[in-house]
């Protein structure tokens, strides 16, 4: 995928570009409104990650321009303002998704994948990894062609792992992915642990390999190697 990141804070921009490049996308950057406008005009992107508060303009104003000239480009808004605030604006303007700062890079990755999947949905959305394959729209997962009976959240979590394979996912990022921003997550880490235990058990019961590794003190990592 070809992605343009529009963000005026250099340290964040660098992190985002580095991260997105590492996950196998072509990533370009713009740190102000004018530059973003110029790049949109010149190139075709699959996705634009857009900060709302730019020094020389409101990022939201890019959306109508994109909609008219580049309707195939997905839009993911990242904003310091809470999702309940500009969400209405951003999504009504025609953005695909909205992410409130601060966010986990794994979450950003999950959102990018989701937008990509929605925009390029040709037939069933199919994912295959190791001996697991999944149909995302039907919430169906198979291990060595044996169906896995995963709950909705377990399925979500598995997708989250697969989209972020070979990355260490912290318990915080998993909890926030599963339950969102406004839940009091004081004992959610126990829940995360239980979910992962259940997924492992279900996969192993069907004769699958345990791809989820516990990284001591940090979290979990999904890896087929």
């Amino acid at each position, binding site marked *: 995928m070809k992605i343009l990141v529009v963000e005026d*804070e250099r*340290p*964040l921009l660098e*992190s*985002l570009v*580095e*991260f997105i490049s590492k996950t196998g996308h072509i990533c370009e950057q713009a740190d102000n409104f004018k530059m973003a406008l110029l790049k949109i005009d010149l190139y075709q992107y699959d996705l634009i990650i857009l900060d709302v508060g730019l020094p020389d303009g409101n990022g939201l104003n890019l959306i109508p321009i994109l909609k008219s000239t580049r309707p195939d480009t997905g839009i993911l808004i*990242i904003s*310091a*303002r*809470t999702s*309940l*605030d500009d969400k*209405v604006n951003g999504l009504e303007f025609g953005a695909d998704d909205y992410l*409130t*700062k*601060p*966010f*986990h*890079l*794994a979450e950003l990755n999950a959102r990018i994948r989701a937008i990509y999947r929605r925009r390029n949905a040709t037939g069933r959305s199919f994912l295959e990894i190791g001996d697991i394959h999944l149909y995302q729209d039907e919430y169906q997962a198979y291990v060595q062609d044996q169906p896995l009976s995963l*709950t909705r*959240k*377990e399925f979500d979590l598995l997708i989250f792992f697969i989209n972020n394979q070979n*990355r*260490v996912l*912290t*318990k*915080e*990022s998993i909890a*926030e992915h599963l339950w969102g*921003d*406004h*839940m*009091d*997550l*004081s*004992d959610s880490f*126990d*829940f995360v642990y*239980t*979910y992962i235990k259940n997924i492992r058990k279900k996969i192993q019961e069907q004769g699958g390999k345990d791809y989820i590794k516990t*990284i*001591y*003190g*940090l*979290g979990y990592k999904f890896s087929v190697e």
Partner: protein
Amino acid sequence: MKLLQKVNRNYLWYTAVVFLIVSFGLCITLTKIVRNEVDEKLFLQFQMVREQININPGLSGIDHLVTVEKLTLLRSPSFNFKDTFLVEKPEQELEKYRYLTAIDTLNGNSYRFETWASLIPTSEFLWALLLTVGFAMLLLVLGMLVLNQRIAKRVWKPFRQYLDQLNGFSFEKPKKISLSPSDIDEFMELRQVLESFTTKAQSDFNSLKEFTVNASHEMQTPLAIIQARLDDLTQIGTMDPEQARHMQAMQQALSRLSRLNQTLILLTRIENNQFSGLKPIELSTFITGQVEEIQELVQIKNLKISVDLTEKVVIVQPDLLDIAIGNLIGNCIRHAAPGTKISIALDSRSLTFRNEGPPVLSDPNMFFNPFVKGDTASGSLGLGLSLVKKICDHFRWTIGYQYESGFHTLKIIFLAQDYDRIPE
């Protein structure tokens, strides 16, 4: 005590004291004057009789008001006035009299003269006088009281109005206070002070609110930078256990800080009334959906959840409702003792969440205040219930907490006008 009462009380005391002093003074001076008057009269009578004896030494034909006795011994002249009591004939009562005894020497003989006069008219006169003065005072006081009352009612009217208006005043409402002018200088001064004071307070309050939101928003980007960099650092494969421990602590603290900041922004936004998009929502479906979401958490904690819902439509902002209900259910799960049952009940008037668990140590009245936790050891932010409370306030619902025989109950009472809203 009311101002008028206080003033009147002081006034009454003063009047009473003045009345006493005046009466006392009147008594003394009048008695003295009357007595002098009587004494003069007695002396005059004595002198008349004396003259008579001087001209005609016989004791016949002397005024019956004076008794004269010829003394056998020669004595030096003297006058002696005194008060005495005599028995009055018709009523056989003791009455006060003024009595003069005089001894004088006339034509070489000593005589004792005795004469007296009643003091009754004097005391009667005094009583009449005191009564009159008392009556006048009373009339004056009563008049003053009535007049004061009337004047006060009129004069203090602007003050009452100011109070009413101040009572209705809220920092959160954009409406400025407007006090009606008065023709009394002091009240005009008060009005001016109140108006400038409230305007100042309002603008200070607003700028403080704005500052809070802006500060929270400004913090989001640095937090995002830290989060992104920390996520990158976490990927380093060669981390030893100690580094991992530090990393974990940082991740946890950062997550806490991020959620804290977001919740504070949300609280302020609700306070600022910055939510629009009211929609009619059927609560029972809404709650059922939320309960399904957390069904697995319920199972993990080995809890049972029972719902008893009747259809109920409320007109609210769905995002806020989502946060409130999510937090209430989350709260139940967090505080329920393992193996117990959570119950959620909804009828046309109220929504109740109930879970079993040990009593909390902190003051239940403080539950809805930010940063108050039932259990200080938990990693909870202590903002969940204050958020719920804020949202309920925003919807103008009432929320209350109760602990009874092992059950924690949180009950929401809907707005009375919504009681009978029928699902369309």
